Every structure is written in structure tokens, then in C-alpha cells.
């Protein structure tokens, strides 16, 4: 799949290589590349239909991911993994939410008296359904479709020792299944718990942002199937702008809980290629509140390793000097 081996022979420009705002495709060695593509998942309109989960499985021919009844909310998928590339989280919360009153409580309605009218609602009233803010309820549902974030600084890609994970021309992160040897390093490296090993296959799998569809100008299967446009696909710049406008309109409408997650290109992973509008703290949805690409600290780690190696040499020399005596 990879047109070039981006790790060999590239003269790396290290500015922005480990942190901060950058053009990941250019970092990955692409010179003439299309704009960076991504997802904006607006969870405020998600209805939890799981069409994205199904579309993803169908398009990518992903095997079954365990038929379990978890008993927790409506979510039996549980989380992202080798065989789950979209996961719809269902959060049941004891938190007040302005509720809509559809006006269909029928206590005190004398049906017999209504009978001559021919309908429960008089014809002039039938055109509108009264929708008024009711009392705050004590339960709300949050639904959110989670996916690989296609990080600007992707830990999975950084640590992959085979070069199987690579950066596409669209700035996304993809596993090359003909190269992966299942070393498993990418799995604990991902700060979001996205990529995982397929047990009977041994290799690591995750969302490809439908690389095959992108190359022929199609949008990813999940975005295509989302009936509410909760999942929006497009050039990242455009999505970021759109998300800003959406956040502003929600705040204007009084939904001050709304916030964007992963939009900022200066956060711990340099911004997510797939980012979200959430209605509560990230950890409520199972997302880390302040994720950092682990390789940010790698230069410091190598320095400590060097110091420790030198210490070992020192200890060995000292042992031979002192060894005559003890």
C-alpha cells in the first residue's frame, strides 16, 4: 500500500517532529499531497443508531468482535479494538437536561368525550405538537461514536519497529498488514486505547479512515452512513472551522456543556485528525482528559538510558578495582 518507505532515506526535518502543530503528511515524506482529511464527530446530534459501527464492519470486512451482553447501558461493543474501529459509547447519567414534553400524557383525558371529535387531537391542534422545556429530568443519555484519532503525532506510528504503520498522503495513520509482525508495540503506545491485536491473526488492526475509499475520492463508510451527520468527513481545516461555529451556536443556545476535544493543534498529540464535540468531560466517554504522545519524552528517555549505561560501565570498573579486596 505504501508508495514509498517513508522511514528510510528521508532527510528528516525535526522541527515539529515530536510535538506541536505540523503538517503530518509532509513530516511523513510526502511532497505533493492532498489536504489533510479527518473526521469531526459532533456527539450532540448522535442518536446512537450504530449505523457507523455496522457500515465500518461491512466495508472493511471486519470479523465479529465478541457477542457479549455487558449489562452496562446499551453498549455491548465496549471499546475500540482490532475488530471494532467505530464504537458508539452510551452514557447514562444522573444529570439534569432540559427535556422536551411531547404532551402525550393522557391522564385525565375523557376518551368518550373525545370520541365525537373523531381524533384525540382536534384538527386545528394537530398541525403542531407542543414542545416545551419541561422540568429538568434526572437521567440523560450521551452517545458518541469513537474512532482512531489519526493523531498529528501518532505514538503508534512512532514506535512501530517494522515501519508497518505509516502516514498516508491524507495525513492519516494506516497499518500495512503485509508488513506488521505483531510485535504489539503500537498497542500500549496509543494514548487512546485504539489499536489492538487480532488474536487468531497476530497482527495489529485499526481504523484506516477508509484509505481505499479516500484514494478514489469517496468518503469513509461511517461518515457516509451516519443519518444525522454526527460524523462529518472533510479537509481538517474546514472541519475545524465548522466545529468552531457549531460550538458557538450550541453555547448561544444555552448548551454550555458543549466543548471540542482534540481540535487544538497544540495539545499533547498535536491535535487529532479525528476530533469531537462532547457534552461532558472526556473521561465520561472513556477518553483520556490530557493525552500526550509518549514519544514526546523519548529524547529524555534515551538520555537517561545513556546515563544508566555509563553507570553500569562505572560499576563494572569499580567492581574489578574493589574486587581484589572483597
Amino acid at each position, binding site marked *: 500500500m505504501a508508495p514509498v*518507505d517513508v522511514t528510510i532515506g528521508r532527510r528528516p526535518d525535526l522541527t515539529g517532529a515530536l510535538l506541536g502543530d505540523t503538517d503530518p503528511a509532509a513530516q511523513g515524506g510526502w511532497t505533493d499531497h492532498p489536504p489533510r482529511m479527518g473526521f469531526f464527530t459532533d456527539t450532540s446530534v448522535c442518536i446512537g443508531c450504530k449505523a457507523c459501527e455496522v457500515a465500518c464492519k461491512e466495508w472493511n470486512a471486519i470479523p465479529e468482535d465478541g457477542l457479549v451482553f*455487558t*449489562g*452496562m447501558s446499551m453498549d455491548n461493543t465496549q*471499546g475500540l*479494538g482490532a475488530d471494532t474501529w467505530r464504537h458508539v459509547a452510551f452514557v*447514562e447519567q*444522573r*444529570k439534569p437536561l432540559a427535556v422536551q414534553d411531547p404532551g402525550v400524557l393522557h391522564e385525565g383525558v375523557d376518551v368518550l368525550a373525545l370520541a365525537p371529535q373523531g381524533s384525540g387531537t382536534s384538527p386545528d391542534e394537530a398541525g403542531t405538537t407542543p414542545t416545551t422545556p419541561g422540568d429538568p429530568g434526572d437521567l440523560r443519555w450521551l452517545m458518541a461514536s469513537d474512532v482512531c484519532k489519526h493523531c498529528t503525532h501518532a505514538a503508534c506510528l*512512532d*514506535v512501530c*519497529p*517494522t*515501519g508497518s504503520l505509516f502516514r498516508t498522503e491524507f495525513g492519516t495513520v494506516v497499518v500495512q498488514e503485509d508488513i*506488521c*509482525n*505483531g*510485535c*504489539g508495540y503500537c*498497542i*500500549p503506545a496509543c*494514548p487512546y486505547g485504539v489499536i*489492538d491485536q487480532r488474536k487468531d491473526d497476530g497482527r495489529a488492526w485499526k481504523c484506516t479512515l477508509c484509505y481505499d475509499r479516500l484514494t478514489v475520492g469517496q468518503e469513509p463508510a461511517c461518515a457516509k452512513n451516519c443519518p444525522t451527520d454526527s460524523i462529518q468527513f472533510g479537509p481538517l481545516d474546514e472541519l*475545524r472551522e465548522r*466545529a*468552531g461555529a457549531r*460550538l*458557538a451556536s450550541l*453555547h448561544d443556545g444555552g448548551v454550555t456543556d458543549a*466543548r*471540542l476535544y482534540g*481540535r*487544538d493543534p*497544540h*495539545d*499533547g498529540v498535536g491535535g487529532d485528525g479525528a476530533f469531537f464535540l462532547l457534552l461532558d*468531560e*472526556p*473521561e465520561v466517554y*472513556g477518553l*483520556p*482528559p*490530557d*493525552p500526550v504522545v*509518549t514519544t514526546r*519524552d*523519548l529524547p529524555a*528517555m534515551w538520555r*537517561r538510558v545513556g546515563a*544508566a*549505561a555509563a*553507570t*553500569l560501565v562505572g*560499576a*563494572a*570498573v569499580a*567492581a574489578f578495582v574493589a*574486587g581484589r*579486596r*572483597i
Partner: protein
Amino acid sequence: MPTDDAVERERQGAGTPGTDVTKDGLRGVRPDREAVTGVTTGRPRGGRGRRRRGGETPQVPDATFTSYYAEPVINKPVWEAPDIPGYLFLGGLAGAASLLGAGAQRTGRRRLERSSKVGAVAAGFLSLVGLVHDLGRPQRFLNMLRVFKVTSPMSVGSWLLAGYIPVAGAAAASAVTGRAPRAGAAATVAAATLGPAVASYTAALISDTAVPAWHDGYREMPFVFVGSGATAAGGLGLLTAPVAETGPARALALAGTALELATFERMERRLGMVGEVYSQGRGGAYVRAGTLLSVAGVVGAVLGRRSRVASAVCGAAMLAASAATRWGVFHAGMQSADDPKYTVVPQRQRLEQGEPATGTSTTTRTPAATTAPSEAAEA
């Protein structure tokens, strides 16, 4: 709530699958139905098996936190024991043993030289075997040598082992057969040069992950690992060489144990709440066993330095100690990956202190902050 269940059963009618009230109590109750999420679901932890060291104030108080039905945030490593902890242990043993072998050659301790060199190449090779065996596709191991990536400690390590094992093998072969002494000496120098790197890179390998107990410990982990490697190599020397030659092995084990224990203690203290996994559960049990064995081994080796048997027993204890430490670090990391607490609480705390990791929070709360500066100026 037996009454509710009885009502429910009444409503559903007899024979309905699901929860049943029987004379032995409730059957088929799904406890997770009661799980509350989205509100503070932090459970008080600790109690069983908890051990806090010497009265210091933990960095992070027992925190309440929110999670998604207590599901872990990160995916747990798929690495398995004994492959990976064995790989860590044997790499440390090999690297330090190469140094011991080179020193023994220089100071004319023939038996110590031979056993250290043979031990080094055997451990180095088995370490590689552990790594390959753990792969999901072992037959594709050579893909590791397809690229060289300094951002991947596993890539660096694979290249290191690929260079180290042949020279360590040559050094051992020459020491055992007595042939090609010149080439043997050159190989010895090469192995002793690569050895310290082989003994320490695995610390960067496990730290370069999102596993809280490993990543956050990256400052001390390399020192813990070389200390543990030195203890193991010293132990191997004591186990295999006659007492007349074991002085340096004993001294190396002593230094290694001291370094390991001191830096481990420091790491646990610095990690605060996350550090508790090193004293809890399976990880904690291995770490404690490692501490006991290494202290006992070193004390015994110094006191019994004139006895061949005592030296050998203590040497074996040191090898076991080093292995136990690696198993402990391995399992502690797994424990910290399994519980969302260790991921969420430190991150949440950074945010609450207004110090996100890179100075910018990943959450944008106000629409204004999303507006570009120029647009903001126009508005």
C-alpha cells in the same frame, strides 16, 4: 431488592428468562446493571495488599474520578509472560555479563571470563528468542530489520541484538576454545561496548508507551534495569566461578543491588498514586520477592565469600532476584493499564492545576478560543 425483583417476575410471568428469585436467593442478577457512570464513580481503593512506605505524603490523594463504566482508557499490552519479562531479564543479564567477562579476561580470571562470556551470549540469544516468540507473526521477525527508527526503542533494540549476539558469540567461542585470541579480544571489546546498551535500552522500550506505571517511571527505570542486570551478572559469576575469582562478581552484584533498590524506591515515591501498583497485587509480590532475594543474596555472598557452596547459592538467589524484579515491573505495568484510575487521575490533576502536558488542553471549552486571532480582532 428482592421485592422489586419479585414484582418484576410477577409482571413478566413465570418462566420468563432473566432474573429469578429462588429459594437460594437471586439468580441471574446482572450486577453491572447498577453501574453508575457519568457521575463520580471513583471507588475507594486499597485496603487489601496496600502498603505505603514509611509515612511519606502521597503526591496524589485518594482521588475520585470519572470513567466509562470502569473500562480501561488505554489498551493493555498484549505482551505475555514469560516471553517479555524474560526478554527484559535476559537482556540485562547478557549486557552486564559481557562487561564482567571483559574485565575477567583483563585481570586473568579465566573461569569467570569463560562462564560470563558463555552466559552473555546464551542470555542475549534467549532474550531474542523471547522477543521473537512473543510476536504475533514470529516468521516475520526480520521485518524488524527493514527500517531503523530511533523513535522506536524496539527497532533500536533489534539492531543492537543483531550486532551484539554475533560478537558476544565470537568472544565466548574464543574464550572456550582458546583459538583466535586476537579476534576473541576484539570481539570481547565489541561485546563489552554494546553490552551496556543491551542492558539498558529495554527500559526505554517499556517507558515509551502510554502505560502509566512504565511511562511515568522513565527517569529511574534505566537505572533500575542496569542495577538489576548487574545483580544478575554478578550472580551468574558467583554461581559458576571458583571463589578465588569471584571478588569482582560479588562487588558488581553489591553495586547493582544498591543501585536498583535506591532508584526503585525513588521511582515509587516520585510516581505517587501511580507508584502503588509496584507494591500491590502480582506486580507487588514479585517486586517484594526480588528485593528480599537480592538483599539476602548480597549479604550471604559477602558473609560466605570463602565458601563455594554459599557463593553458588547466593548467586542463584541474585539471578532469581533480577528475574523477579522484571516480572514485577511487567505485571505492575499491566495493572496500571487495566485500571482507568491510573490514566485519568494524573491527567485530570494536571488539568485542574492548570498545567496540561503541553501547556494547551485538548479540550476547547469556549467558542472564542476557537476563533482565529484575526477574526477575533475584527469582531
